[in-house]
C-alpha cells in the first residue's frame, strides 16, 4: 500500500518526517517496503493479509493517530442534496453472497480530466488517472479502502439491478475486454437480461461508462470474502477491488463510500446525485462485543499492562472500551482483575476474539520494551528421535568413506524418474513449476546422477556424492540413502597413479554403513534396467531370530514417520514385529542395491560418454526396522593364538565367491573364524573359463590352542568339499 505522506498529514498532523512515520508504523506491524522522497513523499507499506482496513489512507492514518496520540480527522462524507429522478431498483437475490448493496444514481456533468491535485494524489498512490469519475472511485478506494463500481444506466436493460448467482452457461465480457464463462457459484450484478458485472471482481464492458454517459449508477457493496476469492481464483482475475473484498471489506463503509464519492464528484463538478441512495441490507450485523481481561493480557504477554493504558491504546484504533462492573457473583469475572467490554468497529474484520485484542494492546504497547525471558521447563523431555541419531550416523559413515552430502529436489523430470519407477507411474504434481519438476522421485538416484553430471561438466573428475531423504510411490514416502561414485578409487598421489573406482568401492562403503548400523549384509547378482547388466547386485540381510530379536523402533516401523520420537513402541507392536520376523525367518530381505549406472541413462543426463558411474541405494526405513536396539555386549579378546591357512583353487569363472565361502563355512569346524579372498587371477596359466581364487582362512578356539594337525585335517576336509561341490582344483 503506497501511502502519500501529504495525504496522511491531511488526516493526522503527524510531527514526524516520512522516515519517522515509516519507522513508527514499522514497529507496529506495517513492514516498510520502500520510502520515496521528493515533492510527493510516499511510504510503501507491506500490509499483512489480516488488515484489509489498512489498504487505505484512513486505515494507516488511524494507526498513526494511535501511535502519535493525535486526533484523526475524517474527510467530508455528507451526501450533497440530490435532484429528483426516476426510481432505481435493487434486488438482492442472494443475501449470503451479498449481504449489503448500496447504489446511487448520478447525473454526469463532466467526464473530462480531474483537477491536478486529485491526479497528483492518485499518481503518488500508484494509480493512473483516467477521467474524473473513474478517478473519484479510485480516490475513494485508496482513501477509505472501499471499492465502488459505476454503470452507465442507459446501457443497462431496465432500471433494476439484480444481485444473483450466474446462470448456467452465462457469459460476460469484462472491462479488460475478455469474454468470460461464469459458473453458478459466482455472484453477478445483472440487469433484466444479463450479468453486467462480476460482484466485487470486475465490471462488464457493456455497461462501462464513457463519454456518452448521462446518468450513472454507482455501486458500493459488501461481498462474502470466501466466495469472492474462489470466483477471482477460478477466473484468474485479481483486481484492486477483489484483493480488498476477499480479505474482508467494512460492511458499514458501503453507504459511506457513496457519500464520500458524491461529495468529491460534487466538489469537482463531475456529477450530481439523482434521487435517494438505495441501501439494501436485509439482515444488519450487530457490532461484535468482546470481553478483554487484564489478567489474560499479562498471562499471554508476560508483562503487565496498566489498566489505564488499555483504553488509551484501543480507543484511538476505533474500539469502544467500557470497563466491566464487578457486580454480581464473583465467579462471573473469574477473579481476573479488571475486565473490559470492547465493541469492535466494523472495519476491523480481523478482530474476532479476545486474543486479537491482546495483540492490539501488545502491538501498540510495543514489542520493543517487552522483557526477554525464557520458558520454564516443567517436565523431563523424552529421549531423542532414533531416526535423527540414525541419520547422523549414516552421514558420518559415508563422509568417512569419502563421499560428500548432496541435496537434490524431491521432484524430477518424468523421463529421469521413469527407469527407476518400474512399471508404476511415480506420483505426479498437479501444478508443477515446470516439466523439469513434474513427478516425485521414486529413487534418490536420478537427482544424484544429475548432480554428478553437473560436476562432471565442470571439469570435475572425481565425484563422490550421497544423499539421505524421502522417495515416493503411490504407497507413500520411504526414507532412503543413496550415493554415486566416479573417477578415482583412491586419492591420487605422486607416489603412484590412482586406481579407477569400481563396484567394490561402493560395495565397501555400503558394507561399512550397514555394519555401523548393526546389520551384516550380503550382495547377490541382480538385474535392473538402470544398471549395466552383470554389474549390479541386491543388498540382502538374512532374516533370522538373532538379527531381528528386539530390533525395532517405533518411528521406523512401517513406512515411517510419525512422531513420537521418544515414545517407545508398545509391547503389542513389538510382539507383532517379532511374529512377522519369525514368519520370515528362513528368508532374506532386500535392503537395496548396488550397481553401475547404465550408459544410456548417463548419456541422457549429459554425462560424458565412456565413463563409469557406480551407485547404491538403501531403504533406511527397512534398515531401521532391523537394527538391534539392545545394548552392545563387548566380547572378550581371544585368549589363544589363531592359525592362518591360505588356499588357492581353480574354479569356474562364473562361480560366485559367496558360494565358495559358503562351501568352506559349511564344511569347516566351528574353529573357523574368518574366511576372506585375497587374490583373484585370470589369465596366463589359468584355463579360459576358470579363475584362480586364493582365500585366507583363520582358525581359532576360544578355550584352547589349536594344533597344526587338526587345522590341516580341517583344511583337507574343506578342500575335499570344494572339489566335490565346485570341481575345484587346488593349485
Amino acid at each position, binding site marked *: 500500500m503506497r501511502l502519500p505522506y501529504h495525504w496522511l498529514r491531511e488526516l493526522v498532523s503527524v510531527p514526524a518526517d516520512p522516515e519517522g512515520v515509516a519507522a513508527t508504523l*514499522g514497529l507496529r506491524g506495517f513492514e516498510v517496503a520502500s520510502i520515496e522522497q521528493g515533492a510527493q513523499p510516499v511510504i510503501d507499506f507491506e500490509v499483512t493479509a489480516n488488515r484489509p482496513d489498512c489498504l487505505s489512507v484512513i486505515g494507516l492514518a488511524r494507526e498513526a493517530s494511535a501511535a502519535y496520540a493525535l486526533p484523526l480527522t475524517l474527510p467530508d462524507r455528507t451526501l450533497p442534496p440530490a435532484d429528483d429522478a426516476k426510481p432505481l431498483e435493487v434486488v438482492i437475490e442472494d443475501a449470503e453472497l451479498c449481504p449489503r448493496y448500496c447504489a446511487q444514481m448520478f447525473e454526469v456533468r463532466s467526464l473530462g480530466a480531474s483537477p491536478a491535485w486529485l491526479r497528483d494524489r492518485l499518481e503518488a498512490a500508484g494509480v493512473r488517472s483516467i477521467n474524473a469519475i473513474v478517478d473519484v472511485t479510485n480516490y475513494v478506494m485508496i482513501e477509505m479502502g472501499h471499492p465502488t463500481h459505476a454503470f452507465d444506466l442507459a446501457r443497462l436493460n431496465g432500471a433494476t439491478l439484480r444481485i444473483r448467482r450466474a446462470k448456467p452457461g452465462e457469459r460476460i465480457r469484462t472491462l479488460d475486454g475478455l469474454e468470460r464463462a461464469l459458473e453458478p457459484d459466482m455472484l453477478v450484478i445483472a440487469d433484466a437480461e444479463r450479468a453486467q458485472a462480476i460482484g466485487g471482481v470486475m465490471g462488464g464492458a457493456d455497461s462501462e461508462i464513457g463519454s456518452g454517459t448521462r446518468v450513472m449508477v454507482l455501486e458500493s457493496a459488501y461481498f462474502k470474502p470466501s466466495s469472492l476469492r474462489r470466483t477471482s481464483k477460478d477466473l484468474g482475475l485479481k483486481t484492486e477491488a477483489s484483493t480488498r473484498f476477499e480479505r474482508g471489506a467494512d460492511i458499514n463503509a458501503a453507504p459511506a463510500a457513496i457519500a464520500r464519492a458524491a461529495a468529491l464528484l460534487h466538489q469537482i463538478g463531475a456529477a450530481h446525485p439523482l434521487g435517494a441512495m438505495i441501501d439494501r441490507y436485509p439482515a444488519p450485523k450487530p457490532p461484535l462485543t468482546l470481553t478483554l481481561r487484564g489478567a489474560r493480557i499479562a498471562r*499471554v504477554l*508476560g508483562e503487565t499492562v496498566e489498566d489505564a493504558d488499555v483504553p488509551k491504546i484501543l480507543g484511538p484504533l476505533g474500539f469502544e472500551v467500557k470497563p466491566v462492573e464487578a457486580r454480581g457473583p464473583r465467579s462471573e469475572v473469574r477473579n481476573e482483575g479488571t475486565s473490559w467490554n470492547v465493541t469492535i468497529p466494523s472495519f476491523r474484520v480481523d478482530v474476532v476474539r479476545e486474543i486479537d485484542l491482546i495483540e492490539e494492546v501488545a502491538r501498540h504497547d510495543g514489542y520493543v520494551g517487552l522483557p526477554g525471558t525464557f520458558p520454564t521447563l516443567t517436565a523431563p523431555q523424552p529421549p531423542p528421535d532414533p531416526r535423527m541419531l540414525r541419520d547422523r550416523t549414516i552421514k558420518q559413515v559415508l563422509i568417512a568413506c569419502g563421499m560428500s552430502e548432496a541435496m537434490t529436489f524431491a521432484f524430477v523430470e518424468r523421463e529421469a524418474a521413469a527407469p527407476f519407477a518400474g512399471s508404476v507411474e511415480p506420483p505426479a504434481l498437479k501444478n508443477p513449476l515446470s516439466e523439469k519438476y513434474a513427478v516425485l522421485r521414486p529413487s534418490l538416484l536420478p537427482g544424484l546422477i544429475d548432480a554428478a553430471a553437473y560436476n562432471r561438466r565442470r571439469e570435475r573428475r572425481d565425484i563422490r556424492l550421497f544423499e539421505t531423504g524421502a522417495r515416493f510411490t503411490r504407497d507413500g514416502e520411504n526414507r532412503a540413502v543413496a550415493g554415486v561414485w566416479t573417477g578415482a578409487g583412491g586419492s591420487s598421489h605422486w607416489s603412484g597413479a590412482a586406481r579407477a573406482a569400481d563396484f567394490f568401492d561402493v560395495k565397501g562403503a555400503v558394507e561399512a554403513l550397514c555394519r555401523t548400523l548393526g546389520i551384516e549384509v550380503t550382495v547377490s547378482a541382480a538385474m535392473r534396467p538402470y544398471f549395466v547388466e552383470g554389474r549390479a547386485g541386491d543388498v540382502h540381510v538374512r532374516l533370522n531370530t538373532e538379527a531381528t530379536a528386539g530390533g525395532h523402533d517405533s518411528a521406523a516401523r512401517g513406512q515411517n514417520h510419525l512422531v513420537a520420537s521418544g515414545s517407545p513402541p508398545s509391547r503389542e507392536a513389538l510382539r507383532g514385529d517379532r511374529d512377522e520376523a519369525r514368519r520370515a525367518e528362513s528368508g532374506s530381505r532386500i535392503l537395496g542395491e548396488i550397481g553401475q549406472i547404465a550408459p544410456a541413462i548417463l548419456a541422457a543426463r549429459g554425462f560424458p560418454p565412456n565413463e563409469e558411474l557406480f551407485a547404491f541405494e538403501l531403504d533406511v526405513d527397512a534398515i531401521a526396522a532391523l537394527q538391534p536396539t539392545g545394548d552392545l555386549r563387548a566380547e572378550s579378546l581371544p585368549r589363544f593364538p589363531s592359525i592362518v591357512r591360505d588356499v588357492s583353487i581353480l574354479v569356474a569363472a562364473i562361480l560366485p565367491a559367496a558360494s565358495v565361502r559358503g562351501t568352506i563355512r559349511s564344511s569347516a569346524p566351528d574353529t573357523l573364524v574368518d574366511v576372506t579372498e585375497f587374490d583373484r587371477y585370470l589369465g596366463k596359466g589359468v584355463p579360459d573359463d576358470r579363475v584362480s581364487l586364493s582365500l585366507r582362512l583363520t582358525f581359532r578356539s576360544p578355550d584352547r590352542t589349536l594344533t597344526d594337525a587338526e587345522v590341516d585335517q580341517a583344511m583337507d576336509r574343506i578342500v575335499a568339499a570344494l572339489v566335490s561341490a565346485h570341481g575345484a582344483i587346488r593349485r
Partner: protein
Amino acid sequence: MNVASLQQQFTSDLAGAASEADLRALRDKYLARKGGLVSNLLKDVASAPAEQRPVLGRQANELKQHIDTQLTERLAQAAARKPAADAIDVTLAGRAPFIGHRHPLTLLRDRIESFFLRQGFLIVEGPELEDDYHNFEALNMPAEHPARDMQDTLYLASPVTSAVGSPATLLRTHTSGMQVRYMERFPPPVRLIAPGRVYRRDNLDLTHTPMFTQVEGLVVGENVTLADLKGTLETFAHDLFGPERRTRFRPSFFPYTEPSGELDISCGVCGGTGRAPADARSVSPKPAERQAGEGGCAMCKQTGWVEVLGSGMVHPAVFEAVGYDPERYTGFAFGVGIERLALLKWGVEDIRLFYENDLRFLEQFPL
C-alpha cells in the same frame, strides 16, 4: 698481507661456505703447507725485522689456530647434517585421505539443533506429503482463507497413501503439520523443534527454491508468554550470529499465531547503519554487497536490519483444533528457513547453490 686483513678475509670466506667441499677448499686456501695464505704469512714473519718477529709470530700462530678450529667445527657440523641414505623429502605432498563433506545446510541444521537441544527441546520429524487439514485447516487457515496465498502450494495430481493419517494431497508448505500431529497425540507441556524439507511453488531465483529447509519450534505450557518467545529468539539469534549483533522484535501476522512477531538482526554487511560500507566495493566481489554503492546497503535495503524469522503465540483456534484448552495453556511457535540463515551467515549470494551440489561449493564448508 697483514694478520688483521687476513682474519677479515677468512671470516667473510667462511660465511660464504655452504658445503663440505667449500670448507675443505678453505682449509687448502689458508692452511696448505705450500701456498696456504697463513703458511705464507708465517714465512713472511721469518723475514721481518727481528724486534717485530715475536709479536708477529704469535699473532700469525693464533690466526692459524683460529682458522683451524673454525673449519674443524664447521666440517663436523656439516658431516652431522648429511642426510641418511633412506631420508625422505618431507616437503612433498601428503597422501590425502578421502573424506567427504557435510552439506552446508546440514552443518547449519546440526548447529541449530544443538542449540535447541541445549535448551531442552525435543526434535521431531514428520511426513513431507501432507493432507490439507494438517497443513492448513488445523492451523486456522480454512479453505479460501486469504493467508493461503502467503504459501503457494504444490498439490499432488492424485492422493497418495500416508502412513500417518488420511491420504496426502499436497507437499507440505511448512513443518507446522508435524506440530499439529504431535499435539494431537501428546498432552502439554510441549517443547520441540521440527526440522525438515518444505515445498512452495516458487520459481528459482537468487533467494527462492521450490524446496527448502525449515526449522519450526513449538513450546506449550501453562505459563508460556510472548516475553518467553522474545527471549528464546534473541538468544538463538545471538548464538547463531554472535552476541554483537543487535536484535529487534516487531509485530507481524501469521494465521496460526496471535500475537505474531518477526525477529530482525542488525545487518552484517553495513553494520546496521544502512549506509554503503566504505570499502564494500573493493573488498567484496559479491554483487549483493557490491551494489551497496551510493544508494546505501543493498543487503538490508538501507534499513540496517535483516529479517531472520517469523513467530508468535499459538492461536487459540489451533489449540482448539488439537484438543488443548486455550484458557489453560499458552504457547509460542516460530519458523525459520535454514537457507536464509545460511545466506545471512556465510554470505552465500545465490540460494540455488545449495541444490546444485557443485563440489567446489560444498567443499568450502568444514566437515
